[in-house]
């Protein structure tokens, strides 16, 4: 399954590495990464597209435990194509 993650991170050292590392360690392969620091509040808005066969909810809960991760949303992508296949 392919998922899109929308993350908001504190603008602190290590935050990016933590969430990308967590995503990979928990069995999801990043396919696309984009984002940047918000000009207003300095927070990182990060979008990841990942592939993984594990339940996305487990990754969401794990990312919610990352101290520097203020919010995380996960949405499935290509569900129609997956089901058709």
């Amino acid at each position, binding site marked *: 399954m392919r998922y899109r993650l929308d993350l908001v991170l504190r603008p602190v*050292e*290590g935050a990016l*590495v*933590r969430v990308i*590392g967590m995503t990979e*360690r928990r069995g999801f392969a990043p396919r696309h990464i984009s984002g940047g620091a918000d000009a207003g509040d300095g927070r990182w808005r990060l979008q990841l597209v990942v592939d993984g066969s594990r*339940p996305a*909810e*487990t990754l969401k*809960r*794990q990312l*919610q*435990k990352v*101290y520097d991760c203020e919010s995380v949303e996960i949405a499935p992508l290509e569900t129609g194509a997956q089901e058709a296949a």
Partner: protein
Amino acid sequence: MNATSPTAAAGLRNGAAWVAHALEAEGVDTIFGYPGGAIMPFYDALVDSGLRHILVRHEQGAALAANGYARASGKVGVCVATSGPGASNLVTGIADAMLDSVPMVCITGQVPTSLLGTDAFQELDVFGMTMPIVKHSFLVRKVDDLPQVLAEAFRLAREGRPGPVLIDLPKDVQVGPAAHLPAHVPAVVEREPAPADAALAEAIAAIAGAEKPVVYGGGGIALADAVDEFRQFVEASGIPTVLTLRGLGALPGNHPQFLGMLGMHGSRAANIAVQESDLLVVVGARFDDRATGKLAEFAPFARVIHLDADAYEISKLRTADIALPGDVRAGLRALAAAARSYSTNHAQSDWRQRCAKNRERHAARYDAPGQDIYAPALLKRVSELAPDAVVACDVGQHQMWVAQHCRFSHPRNHLTSGALGTMGFGLPAAMGAQFACPDRPVVMVSGDGSFMMNVQELVTVARCQLPIKMILLDNSSLGMVRQWQELFFDKRYSEIDLSDNPDFAALARVCGIPATAITQRGEVEDALAALLAAPGPGLLHVKIDARANVWPLVPPNTANSQMLESNPNEQKAESAHALPA
């Protein structure tokens, strides 16, 4: 809590002194560490602080001693090391704390911020190295960040599911002026919210309606300080109970509802009950593979109620039919209160009797033939002679024998490296426990493989005259690896021979610790009595049969119903379902 106003300046001369002050304000009294270049300002500050520093002989000993201190006391364990190799030597102890949810704050010195990223002498990116094995970490680049970092580090270490927090302190931060910083005030640690009422009601109905319920408790019970509530729930409900390795002690070992540890080296009664149950009430446990065996065949008939402080653990491996994320203590109180209203008239008596019968039928036997010292019998005797001792063990066969044959009155009395399986854990963990509980008997049980991994800490035990009673079970081999090679690798023994071990009793004596050695079964009683009665530290070197194995055993990736028998000459798998009632 420090009585000083949070807005008042602490008046301390530099960052290092302020950190020492913050540790004291957090209630820390003992820290474990080893000095070196980049952490020297902190060690200088220790001279004027009220902290007791225990100088170990290897940084891994410091991390594992702090780990043992935290496990035995429930307080935050603190360890300190310098940058570079000092920091990397902490890594195993930090990882051990992460995997077993042990609250720790680990402080490392670092090269000055101006040299970060230049490959300076003893520069190591410990902040990056440890990211996967810490609950959180901080690289402090400004003195002014110290108050928030220290408060958050201790809060995070303690709150919810505990864990280790690393604070990397560059040298310029340690020596930077700090007189303007406020006095440290610990952050408030909040408990998780109670599980939702609707889910609790659903759980209560499921428990009341179950015919073959089993309570499956783990390390999260003690982490939530919920041992009393767990016992109240178990007793009010009357449900047969199994425990994980790290849950042992949540029910006393002789409790009539306790069926034993489940899993790979669990009791037959426990595994049979779980495999046959129609409802698992899982409390503070996480379906670890050593507990479940082949997950797809684990408890195949059971619905699952899962109560855990860490929402992530729920449905991670086994889908929960009723999820109870939240405060374990509050959840257990609600379940216990409900259980009191139906426990006397609930129709589970046949199941309880069947479980009790299996417990009796499959009770461990201690009448092994021969004159070799039978480790399970020796360990059972240790528990009888020192029932309230804190027992720290290492990793391997002896670790499983401790879990199977010692009796624990509380989980904090059983210090075992559960998830990481850290050989070398036992001796430093026992040191930490003895510092945390100076008036309690502390027993360390180790094997000849594990013991050598942190043997240098014998000198620390002697220096501090810690009255730890060390029992070294010596089979002159890496016993658990040998057992697996015997059973699963066609007896192709590979690199397990330790027959050239040193004379352990002599080694202990050289370090200043009285020691004796025994080889015959008839010597056990007097030797244990003498060891436990002696006032200071002592080591008992016990030669055991090198062929002894740990039984029962569920082979890896096999259903828990397929337990290998205890007779090594007639090993056979027996289906739990085939057993007569």
